[in-house]
């Protein structure tokens, strides 16, 4: 039955697309596709940001023995719509002391940084917006836009709290990028490629061929280091010094209101998604099933489309689990002091990540060496 469906879709596509494409120049379709993909990614990121902000409040409530928002829609699921409408209707204030242009530009710069990451993420088997050879490097590079956006916002606000938050953020983001880079390097060393699809392809097999279980326990340590550094990169508790409400009012977004604030807010949650997606791809096998087979394929036959759908499901499920862990941590831990924050990065994460990289490098090199010379009596 499913085969008939798929055949029907195939014949529909085969008959309809040529009629649509007829006479239109290829460049036009290229631009249309860009807009379609951009819209899908932007919509998906915004939807995730909204749902994550709702989930965050529910998790906070549950951890504190409360219920959290459960009035708008079923179990409060549409709370983010109400919040969004409220933010849209708010007055758009720009302080008189602000640098107007930078103040306006900052949210977009931050949002570009987070949304740019989505362009290189493999969402499922051979599904990604671009298949970059240097995907990991691109992600690492474009995520630095976040720091630029935050510093712009803090500086342009013309407010001491904002500036302090931005300075803290700058030091924090720049410091924590180093352990992240070393974790990336470790994975690149194991996989031998920076292409995201190929990194996932290297983890095919059972759950034990995922990179997190590749060189136990060192890749697990790398994963933990990456996760902690990623928490700091997304400005989340216990590393939320840039926006520390009790010290800096709101940090870099103190002066923002309405839709501009919403952009910061969504940027933060979209960044959470992106960071967890990278952790999933690098360590937890991306869209690969934890079982040795794909459930839908086992049930309905060996269709590529089913693999793609189920792969997407696994990818999102793994990400949502990591996002939940992030929220769980947020409502467990208090905030670090500035000096503790720096100490954690430079005295703990950096040496440990360097050591694991060294050990994994030697281990993988040894493995290669022994396998290469096994035939020569070694």
């Amino acid at each position: 039955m499913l085969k008939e469906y798929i055949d029907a879709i195939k014949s529909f596509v085969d008959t309809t697309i040529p009629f649509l494409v007829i006479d239109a120049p290829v460049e036009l379709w290229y631009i249309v596709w860009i807009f379609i993909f951009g819209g899908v990614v932007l919509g998906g990121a915004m939807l995730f940001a909204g749902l994550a902000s709702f989930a965050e409040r529910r998790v906070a409530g549950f951890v504190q023995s409360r219920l959290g928002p459960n009035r708008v829609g079923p179990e409060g699921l549409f709370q983010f719509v109400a919040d969004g409408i409220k933010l849209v209707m708010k007055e758009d204030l720009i302080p008189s002391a602000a640098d107007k242009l930078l103040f306006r530009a900052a949210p977009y710069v931050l949002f570009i940084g987070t949304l740019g990451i989505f362009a290189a993420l493999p969402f499922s088997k051979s599904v990604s917006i671009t298949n970059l050879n240097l995907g990991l490097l691109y992600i690492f590079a474009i995520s630095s836009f976040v720091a630029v956006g935050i510093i712009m916002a803090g500086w342009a606000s013309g407010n001491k709290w904002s500036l302090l938050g931005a300075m803290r953020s700058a030091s924090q983001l720049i410091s924590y990028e180093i352990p992240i880079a070393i974790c990336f390097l470790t994975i690149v060393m194991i996989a031998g490629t920076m292409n995201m699809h190929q990194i996932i392809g290297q983890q095919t097999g059972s759950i034990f061929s995922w990179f997190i279980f590749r060189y136990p326990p060192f890749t697990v340590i790398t994963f933990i280091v990456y996760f902690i550094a990623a928490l700091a990169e997304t400005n989340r508790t216990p590393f939320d010094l840039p926006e520390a409400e009790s010290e800096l009012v709101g940090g870099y977004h103190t002066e923002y209101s309405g839709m501009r604030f919403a952009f910061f807010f969504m940027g933060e949650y979209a960044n959470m998604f992106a960071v967890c997606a990278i952790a999933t791809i690098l360590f937890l096998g991306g869209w690969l099933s934890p079982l040795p087979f794909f459930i839908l394929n086992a049930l309905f036959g060996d269709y590529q489309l089913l693999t793609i759908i189920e792969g997407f499901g696994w990818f999102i499920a793994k990400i949502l689990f990591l996002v939940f862990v992030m929220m769980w941590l947020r409502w467990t831990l208090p905030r670090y002091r500035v000096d503790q924050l720096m100490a954690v990065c430079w005295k703990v994460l950096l040496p440990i990540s360097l050591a694991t990289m060294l050990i994994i490098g030697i281990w993988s090199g040894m493995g290669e060496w022994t396998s290469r010379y096994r035939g020569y009596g070694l």
Partner: protein
Amino acid sequence: MITYFKAIVVGLWSVLAGMGITIRYFFSKKVTMEYPEKRWQMPERFRGMVKCDTDKCISCLYCVNICPVSCLTLEGIKAEIPSRVITLEGKEMKRMKDVTKFEVDISKCIFCGLCAEGCPTCAIGMSDEYELSALSRKELVYQYARSGQR
């Protein structure tokens, strides 16, 4: 060197212990009472809104006299057909008067319960009703008369 690794292990372990505590609370029973749908079960001796059963009232004016803030107004006329009521002690007695006006001004009432304590026929009592807000002062005066019962 040993203290360095020990500190890391202890730190991670403390994070995990904290996460264990929060996840236990995550799955525990929630204390929130979703108020308009669910209500507290009031204790037996809770003193809420004053309520009066005017069919039992014998217009003895005990409550009006004992009320420390004078929030009660009671008027009665001689009944055409005397009915029978049961007193506090369990005896039957003749009820000679009908109540024409019984008002409780909730804005004055201090919910002391003195009126209910001494009522000879248990006509007046403290209910468990606690939602007493109103939009005007006039609405705060509750009337329990035979003509316009609330």
